[in-house]
Structure formats: C-alpha cells, structure tokens
C-alpha cells in the first residue's frame, strides 16, 4: 500500500480549503494524511477531513448513468447516451424554462462552464446553489468592503478580534487555532453568538444578542466608539433591545479604542446573525469606524462549503454574472456576451426557493444533493417537483431525488475531481484526481452537453477551460499558468465592485405574545449545519455514527438550569404555549444555550412555531421570530 500518486486533494466539505493527501493503493484510498506545509491547515484536519476517504470506498455509489423509460423503469446507459438524451430533451426549451441548482462543492471549472451553458444554450438565469441565499448579506458587505478582507492566519496577529457567529468552530475549524493563538498572545476576543461555546470560553466579552437584533448592538458599539457614528443608540438601550448584558458595549468599546490591530471574523452560515439589511448596514458603518482605528486587518467572512466563494466568483446566482457582475446590468451582460461570443440570457431568473416552489420551470438540473432533502417536509418538496417534466440529477449517491429523476449521471467525489477550488480567503488551489470518476469530470459532462446542444466550444483539456476563465473572470488570471496543477496555488486578487443591490430577507421581529412572568424567550437559530445532511458525508460510517446523535424529531434546546426550574427533563417532552396556541415538543438540554431562552433549530421552525404564532406569521419571516412562551412539562 502506498500513497496514491498525485493525490493532493482539496477537502470537499467546508470553506477552509484544507489540502490533504489520500493514502491507498490501486484498489482505492485507505486513509488520509494531512499536509504540514499547507498554509491554511498546517497539518490540522477536522473529523470530516479525517474520514473523507470513506465515501470513496462506499460501494453504494451511482456508477452508471440511467434513463427512465416509459413506465418509470430506470435503465443503465452509457454516459454519452445519457448526455445525448438530455440534450434532445433540453433542446428548444423556451427562455427561463430551465433551472439549475449547482453545487458549492463543484470545481471552479465545472461551475464556470455550467453557468456559461445555462446562460447561453439553456437560456436561463435561474441558476443558484445551496447556501447562496445565506451568503447574500455578507456578499453585499464584501462588495462594499472588499479591499478589507483578511486571511485566516492574519487573524493570529490581531490584538482584538470581533468573532461573530462562529459557534464551536465546526463550520470552519481552521479559524479555531488562529483565534486561540491570538488569545495566547493576550489578544482580546469579543464574541457575538447565539451560543456560549467552548471556543469562546476565554473570550473577554461574550454577547448573545437576540436573533435579528444585531443592528442594535452594532449601532450601540459604533456610537460608543465615535461621535460621528449615525444613528446613535445608547448602550443602555442595546441592553433592553438586543438582550445583551449591561456594560458589555462599554467594555467592548474600551477594548477597541486601545487596539492596534483589529480583525472581524464572521460566519456566513448563520441565518440569524447578520441576516438582515439593517445589521449589514450597521456592520458596514462599524467597519468604517474600525478601519480608522490602529492597523485595521480587515473582515474575514467564513463560507460554509468548499467552493462557496468560487461559486460566487463564477457567477452562480440568479442575478450574478462571473466576476460579481450584476446580471441585471445590460452593460455587464453585453461584456460577457462579447467574451463568450454568444448572447447571454436576459430573462429574469429565480433562486432556489423560486425554483422549488414556483411554477413555470420545465426542466430542472440538480448537481449533488437536492436542497431540503432529508429535512422535515421533503416528501412535499419531492411531490411538488414531480410536476417538472424533465428532471436531471448529477449525483454520487442514490436518493429519493435520483429515484425521481428522468436522467441520472454519476458525479465525481472529492478525490476523483480535478480542478480548482477557492477557499474562504480567496485562495485558489488545484485538487487532483486520485482515482478515476465513475463517468467523467463534471466539466466534461457540461462540455459534452454543450456540444450536443450545438455549442462551438471545444475544450480539449481542462487547461483550455482554465485559460478561458483566466480571461473572463477578474482575479483568476493566474489560472492560465500550468503550474497551478502542481502544488501551486494563488490568492485571487480582489476587485472593486459596485452595490449589488440584492434582495435580503425581511427583518421584522414578531412581537411578544405572552406576558407570563415565568415565560422564556423562544428564538429560532441555525443549530445544524448544512453538512449534517450532506449525502456524501453520511457515507462515512464514522461520520454517520457521529451525526446520528442529532435528535431526528422536532425539538427545542434549553439551558439545563432553566429546564430544572420549569420541571422539564432532558429528552422528555414539554408544552410550549403562547396566546395563540400550544405545541408539544421534545426537550433537549444544552449548557451552551443562553439562560432565559428556548432555541428552536431552524429546520423545525415551521413545525414548532406554526401553532404558536398568528396565522401566516410562521412563514419565511417567522424564521427570525423571537416570541415569549410559557413552558411546562407534558
């Protein structure tokens, strides 16, 4: 057994972009080796990285393409036949009738070519990827403050770190040693989170503001730092409005005033931190104050999947073109048309919610997991998708979605994929293929489909494609160099872009409904991360075992001391009650829940909140609800 030749792989899970080496033999990988000299990971891998060879060993893979014949029976065909069939079915689709759900774990090359295919020969702007909407707010902030982003290792050198929504660090673990190294150097940490996690047990200030109250504490902090900050919110008001502890704003301001090097790190997966326009605007104003304080390091947004930033850069979004150009901007479209020598679709597109819920889509192409599959309500989702006449799945493992699809094409896994990935810092790295994929590389699938649809493009090798990306996507110029295929990498340069003007979720919190003095505050928070439901990670027996610990029924989280006072038992049931109704749920005790609160995991929000809120209030805006409930054992 020996290390697989050329087996330097970019981990396929979070946005840290750790490189690792697959160890194995001709029969496949048998283990993982970290890379000590990798600039981001420095030889550290999380549990997902350490078990990432296991999905490659799973014999339940989709290994051949299938086409569903009349009567619904799926038959195996060659991947070329599957492409030919798909092109026949897709040819002549009217503008806007096709939708594409791309994957943030695909390579830049695949994403770029898929976007190009979609916006030209498939005549659609309805191109999105899971997690795209949760990054909207931070995209907007980055668009404005893009020259001020910093790298993970630069956080080491900060003397004050504002860490927002990092939780226990599991979503992007490589930030953890950077924060702790800074703490070891006596750096101060201001933690803002829904949880009191171990990661910030040594934080100087740990604020747990209510969901959708970020604008309040940020404005209060800005006001405390600068007399020029508008609007001015007194710190004492922030205590009442945002649910933070007295004195925290003043102490945070004091730390920041004395700081020489300040960094802001924020997780982008959180649906509850910085998810509304007011918060983002407030953070933008705060950054403008901080950047004049000492030696400003910048803001580091942490993205949730291995190529979320690459997907944004490659223009995967209903209103985003490659290079962060606005799809609604006629000049940007014309520029892209000239680069591609093809007209770019002008029809309005929709994002994933629109794709899955709105009518009018005639063909749906999904790469990887169908968003929402495996979550409460997925049966309804699948039933709704049955109305789409053509469903194409490019997937590594079978699922209810691939069972429902008319055409299924095998998808390569990390370790089988060749291409570049852009990590959360903008570091573009080459990932090698250590074993061949069951069919083809994703980019080869799109190239073949484009050719079948009549495209004149000819990409003999991935290098041809990279050269085109280097010409079309600003910041990716070094992709044209062959050296990227070694252990080469580059940090893509940033460019100035204008206001993207993208829509953001509504932010109105729901009013309290219950004046009960013994009541607790019910908040919806993102408890489980997208990878908890990832079909690939669940193919690792160890990860499947670890994630099976998650309760798989609607439940709420409560601090053990609050549970004790309310005579609730861990894993027992309790009744939540408001003026509008009541519901019975499972109770899970967790000591990291702030006192006085009950947290509903967002995936169960609709089920739990539905009976407790006024009619119509538990829809999407209800995801951000904060409502008082009375709680009692059942």
């Amino acid at each position, binding site marked *: 057994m020996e290390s697989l030749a050329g087996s330097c792989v970019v981990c396929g899970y979070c946005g840290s972009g750790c490189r690792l080496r697959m160890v194995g033999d001709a029969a496949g990988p048998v283990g993982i080796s*970290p*890379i*000590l*000299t990798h600039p981001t990971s420095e030889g550290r891998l999380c549990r997902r990285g*350490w078990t990432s060879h296991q999905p490659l060993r799973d*014999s339940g893979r989709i290994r051949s393409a299938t086409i569903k014949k009349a009567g619904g029976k799926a038959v195996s065909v060659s991947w070329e036949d599957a492409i030919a069939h798909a092109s026949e079915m897709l040819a002549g689709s009217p503008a806007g009738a096709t939708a594409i759900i791309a994957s943030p774990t695909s390579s830049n090359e695949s994403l770029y070519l898929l976007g190009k295919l979609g916006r030209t020969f498939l005549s659609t702007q309805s191109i999105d990827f899971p997690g795209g909407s949760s990054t909207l707010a931070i995209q907007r902030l980055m668009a404005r403050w893009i020259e001020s982003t910093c790298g993970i290792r630069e956080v080491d050198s900060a003397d004050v770190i504002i860490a927002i929504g990092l939780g226990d660090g599991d979503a992007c673990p490589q930030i953890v040693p950077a924060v702790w190294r800074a703490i070891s150097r006596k750096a101060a940490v201001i933690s803002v989170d829904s949880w009191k996690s171990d990661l910030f047990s040594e934080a100087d200030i740990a604020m747990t503001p209510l969901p959708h109250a970020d604008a309040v504490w940020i404005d209060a902090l800005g006001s405390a730092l600068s007399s020029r900050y508008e609007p001015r919110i007194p710190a004492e008001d922030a205590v009442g409005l945002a649910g933070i502890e007295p004195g925290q704003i003043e102490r945070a301001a004091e730390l920041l005033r004395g700081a020489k090097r300040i960094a802001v790190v924020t997780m982008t997966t959180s649906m509850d931190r910085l998810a509304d326009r007011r918060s983002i605007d407030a953070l933008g104003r705060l950054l403008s104050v901080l950047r004049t304080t000492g030696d400003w390091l910048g803001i580091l947004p942490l993205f949730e999947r291995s190529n979320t930033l690459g997907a944004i850069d490659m223009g995967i979004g209903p209103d985003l073109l490659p290079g962060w150009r606005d799809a609604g901007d006629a000049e940007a479209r014309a520029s892209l048309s000239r680069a591609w020598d093809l007209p770019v679709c002008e029809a309005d597109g929709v994002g994933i919610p629109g794709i899955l819920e709105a009518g009018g889509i005639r063909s749906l192409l999904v790469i990887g997991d169908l968003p929402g599959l495996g979550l409460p309500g997925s049966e309804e989702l699948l039933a709704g998708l049955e109305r789409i006449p053509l469903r194409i799945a490019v997937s590594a493992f079978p699922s209810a979605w691939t069972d429902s699809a008319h055409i299924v094409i095998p998808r390569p896994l990390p370790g089988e994929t060749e291409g570049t990935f852009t990590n959360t810092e903008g570091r573009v790295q080459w990932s090698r293929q250590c074993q061949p994929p069951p069919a083809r590389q994703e980019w080869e699938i799109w190239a073949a489909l484009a050719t079948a649809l009549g495209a004149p493009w000819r990409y003999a090798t991935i290098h041809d494609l990279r050269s085109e990306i280097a010409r079309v996507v600003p910041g990716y110029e070094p992709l044209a160099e062959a050296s990227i295929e070694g252990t080469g990498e580059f940090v893509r340069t940033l460019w100035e872009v204008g206001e993207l003007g993208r829509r953001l979720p509504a932010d109105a919190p729901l009013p309290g409904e219950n004046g009960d003095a013994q009541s607790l505050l019910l908040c919806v928070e993102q408890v489980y991360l997208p990878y908890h439901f990832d079909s690939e990670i669940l193919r690792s027996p*160890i990860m499947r075992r670890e994630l099976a610990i998650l309760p798989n029924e609607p439940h709420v989280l409560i601090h053990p001391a609050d549970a004790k006072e309310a005579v609730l038992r861990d894993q027992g049931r309790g009744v939540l009650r408001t003026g509008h109704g009541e519901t019975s749920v499972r109770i899970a005790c967790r000591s990291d829940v702030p006192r006085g609160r009950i947290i509903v995991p967002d995936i169960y929000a609709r089920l739990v909140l539905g009976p407790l809120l006024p009619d119509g209030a538990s829809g999407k805006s209800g995801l951000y609800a904060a409502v008082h409930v009375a709680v009692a054992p059942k």
Partner: protein
Amino acid sequence: MAPHDPLTLPKERCVEFLSSLEIPIAGPVSTGAGEVEYRIAPPGEMILDGYVNSAISPVRFPYPQTQILWRYSQNGEPRFTPEDQSLRMAIFGIRSCDVTAFRYLEHFFDRPPAETTFLDAASKILLVSIACNEPGENCFCVCCDGGPFLEGGFDVQLTDLGDRFLFEIGSDRGAEAARRAGGMLKAASEADRTRRERLAEEALDKFGITSHMATGIRKLTSRRVAEELWARLAARCIECGGCAFVCPICTCFDVADMCDGESNGRRERTRDCCQYAGYSREASGFNPRPDKVSRFKRRFYHKLSFFYLQQDGRHGCVGCGRCVSACFGGVDMPAVVNAIRSERIEADA
C-alpha cells in the same frame, strides 16, 4: 540472537544495500511540498538524511487507517474469506519513535485473543531505522523512552556518521539483511562507535519540547488532577480526532460491514477516535462518557495511568510529536502533561 558488533555502510552504497534485500521497500520520499511521506518506491528515491518525520507514521503499513478484515459471499454456501494484506517488505528510514510504536502495537495486538491481521502483516516487515541526530521541532521522544536512539526493538539501526551509516543489528532478521549486504558492510572502528555515542548524547540536548511524563503519570494515577483543569483543557478540544489518527500507538477502531452488491460484502476496520461522542455510545443509547470533558480525561488516563503502563508494557506515548502538529487547540500530549505538572493543587502542596 547472538550479539553483533556494529558495522558501517557507506552512504553511496545504501541503494545497493536496499536492493540486495529483494523485497519491496517503503521509505521516506519527498512529497514535493517540503515534507516526506513513507511510500513503497524504488530505493533510489529514498531520502537518506536530513528529513523530519512524516505526518503519518509508517506503522500504517501493517495498520492502515482503513483495512478490509475479511470478505463474505452468500452465493450458495455462505463463505467468509480473510483478507490477506500482509506483504514481505522493509521499512527503511523509520524513526526511533515509530519503531517503538511498532513494537507496542505488536504487544497490544498479541494480547489474547490475538489479532492476527496486524500480527501477520507486522511479522513480515523488516525495520531499518535511522536514529535521530537532529530531532524535529515538535519531537519529545526523549521524555517518552521512544528515542532519539534505540537500544533495541529495531532489526537494523543506522546512525548517520556523515559519509556512512553505523549499522547496528538488532534481530535475526537484521542479521540476515547484513548477510545479504555482504561486502558492502565493514566493521565499525572505535572512532565510529565513539562518534555514535557522542551523537546520541548531543541529540538529547536538541529537543525544543520537554514533557514531564513521570509527573503526569504520577498525578493521573493518583487522580490528583483537578476537574477544573480537565474542563479548561477540554474546552480547547474541538473533537477533530486528529490526535488519534496521527498517533502511531492509538488503537481505537470502528468496524463496519460494507455491502458489495446483494450477495457480497466486506468487513472493514477503520481507525477511530475516543474523543468522538459516538465512539463510546452503547447500543442502548447510554453513553458512559457523554461529554467532552469526560472523553478528554479518559484519553489521557488511557495514555498515562499506571494501570495501562503495567498492562501494555509502557505508557501510551512515544513522543513522536505528531499530535502537536495535528491539534487545533494546542492540547496535545506535551501541553496537557505540562499543564498537569504545573498545576498546584491542595493535595500536592
């Protein structure tokens, strides 16, 4: 084994020596990124000197992260076929800590009932170690009786004397390797032996990390470590499992049956981590170590308490330093032992 006088092997004949063994050789090979990994490769590709140890121990050859134990077939009469993955081979350039780990694993897996998959594979491997004149920055084997020079456990131990290796034979298998080398080996001079002793002494002073294992063992065994200290240390563990996966003597594993179609399948063993919540969860759902602090504490009790030292012949650390590189929170073995040592508690006062 009869005692053997030390010999010398000119470096320029090292490739010839390895070729003379006529078996596949795994050794330190450059990854091209400033690191080495142990890989089966032509002897000419092996690095002979100046390398720091690999990220993953070469004990992975007999004990890979994932391995098939046996295959089953239900076509007709059910059949179970053990998977023979053993290979007669040599590991060249293995460092002292990993030789110590190799012998520990043999001892561990030989405890009744003997685990033959590992033992069969290990029994076919010749260990040609290179003693460490220059320890790596994370190494602390000197505190763990794991190196930098070995008194036993190796088949052949080489010491870098500049233009040649001092060649020490540690087993009959090592003697056979020397016999194959024939005229390539010369008797070591008194000066060579003296130089070897001096290098061994000098190496002791070159360690950047010290870990007071004896104090750690004493305090852990007598349970004189405050719960507050465990909680503080465990707070920095993100349960990545890296310490267990890189540790050459960690033996936690998971077993899973994998279906290869409707009638065939395989049983695989995968190295696991006692820091994972699911590792200790029982079938009933009860978990004797339900929280991170109890799991963290348990790991170090297993590594350092005297009970296990007696049972396994040594404590559970060879000082390779890999956990120092792998740990996100800096709660690696030397850091924890030193925190335990420096903790002042009432009972110690």
